[in-house]
């Protein structure tokens, strides 16, 4: 009963190519987005996430063409995030073929965008991405950061998650900033605190280095889906291997 735990390869895209950073810095080229998307689809990926990390606004429309091409060939849910500032940006991504749009920095700067986008297009296509880091200078444990981890917001990540769901977020993508790219595993206490606080599905992100980390993300972190990039991009594991491992450890997978 219930849902299979989803495995979501994440493709960080800049200027039309897939890259993956370590601790949000030092980008490495990993290939053509459409080819990679097809490969993951064939391996049994349950969903794909594209994060547009293009710095220059000149090249920002490239992601639309990528999504159009992927959506013509890959028939699983596609989530796109990065650089979403206005409801109009959400509309353009959905029209290009995205099934869900992920909103991150803008959700903090202008929460109204989350509410307006959810009421216009439905909660099912609005994902709020929360980048959080453990802090010791606040009355709470995990603080929300924006701008790729550079700006502290003063917001409690758990409270923030509740607020985003109340505004209409249909899913949360929670990235642990101190884990991203480290390969030491998800921040499971953070994910568990948020997962317990809300009714909508939670995607765990940041820090996967081996297949046990995926299992722990579900069993310890309460995640409904696990997102990973580098373990798949560099061929360390296939999505199928990840599913086999999760199934052997008692998890329901597709």
């Amino acid at each position, binding site marked *: 009963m*219930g849902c299979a735990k989803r495995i979501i390869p994440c493709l960080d895209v800049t200027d039309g190519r897939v890259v993956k950073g370590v601790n949000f810095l030092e980008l490495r080229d990993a290939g053509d987005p459409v080819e990679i998307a097809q490969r993951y689809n064939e391996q049994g990926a349950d969903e794909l996430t594209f994060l547009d990390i293009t710095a220059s606004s000149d090249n920002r429309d490239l992601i639309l063409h990528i999504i159009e091409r992927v959506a013509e060939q890959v*028939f699983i*849910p596609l989530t796109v995030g990065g650089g979403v500032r206005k409801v109009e940006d959400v509309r353009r991504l959905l029209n290009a*073929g995205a099934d869900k749009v992920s909103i991150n920095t803008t959700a903090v700067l202008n929460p109204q965008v989350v509410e307006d986008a959810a009421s216009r297009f439905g909660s099912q296509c609005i994902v709020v991405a929360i980048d959080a880091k453990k802090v010791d200078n606040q009355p709470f444990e995990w603080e929300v950061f924006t701008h790729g981890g550079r700006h502290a917001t003063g917001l409690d990540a758990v409270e923030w998650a509740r607020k985003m769901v109340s505004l209409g977020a*249909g899913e949360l993508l929670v990235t642990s900033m101190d884990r991203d790219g480290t390969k030491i595993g998800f921040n499971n206490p953070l994910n568990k605190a948020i997962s317990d606080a809300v*009714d909508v599905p939670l995607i765990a992100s940041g820090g996967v280095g081996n297949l046990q980390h995926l299992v722990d993300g579900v069993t310890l972190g309460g995640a409904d889906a696990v997102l990973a990039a580098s373990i798949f991009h560099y061929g360390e594991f296939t999505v199928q291997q990840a599913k086999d491992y999760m199934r052997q450890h008692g998890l329901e997978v597709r």
Partner: protein
Amino acid sequence: MNSLQVAIIDYGMGNLRSVANAFRAVAPDVRIEVTSDPAHIAAAERVVFPGQGAMPDCIRELDARGLRQAVTDATREKPFLGICIGLQMLFEHSEEGDTPGLGIYPGEVKRFPAEKMFDEHGAKLKVPHMGWSQVQQAAPHALWHDIPDQERFYYVHSYYVEPDDAALTAATTAYPFDYTCAIARDNVFAVQFHPEKSAAAGLQLLRNFVNWKP
């Protein structure tokens, strides 16, 4: 010009590109059109009725475009595939916004009840039901051709249909209780899941629909 074979009804609720893309992938020789023109819907050989978002908005937009009659006629006349809210709207009433549906079939669209949303280990189940769940086929049907029983399809929804007539049910899914995830009657087939996002199994169902001769 070939006659229009598959009309995908567009009433302004979200993006139908995925549905059209999926049909083009499985039936490259078939003429497929996304349309809000009642005449095109009436002329089409087959009709697809998708839907996403909230049912009150869907019904409002359908009526704003004058498409209620065209949809109702199609359910009586030709191979008809409802998807997601396109299934829910076929019923009499939805709890979502206390909305009357098209009333093609007696029954109610209900929200997943919070007090029942726990799995067999007592863990909380999320709403919306989002992800891949198993589809238990209730009876053989042309649209299940080459799709194994208990195959997984992709879902995203917070409401489900409860037909008055149990014989309408073509499949159920468990989340956590068994509910109707597909209905079949005569020339109508409708599903709660998204075949256009359900990888190979979903494409097979769409292929079966294109080939279906009810």
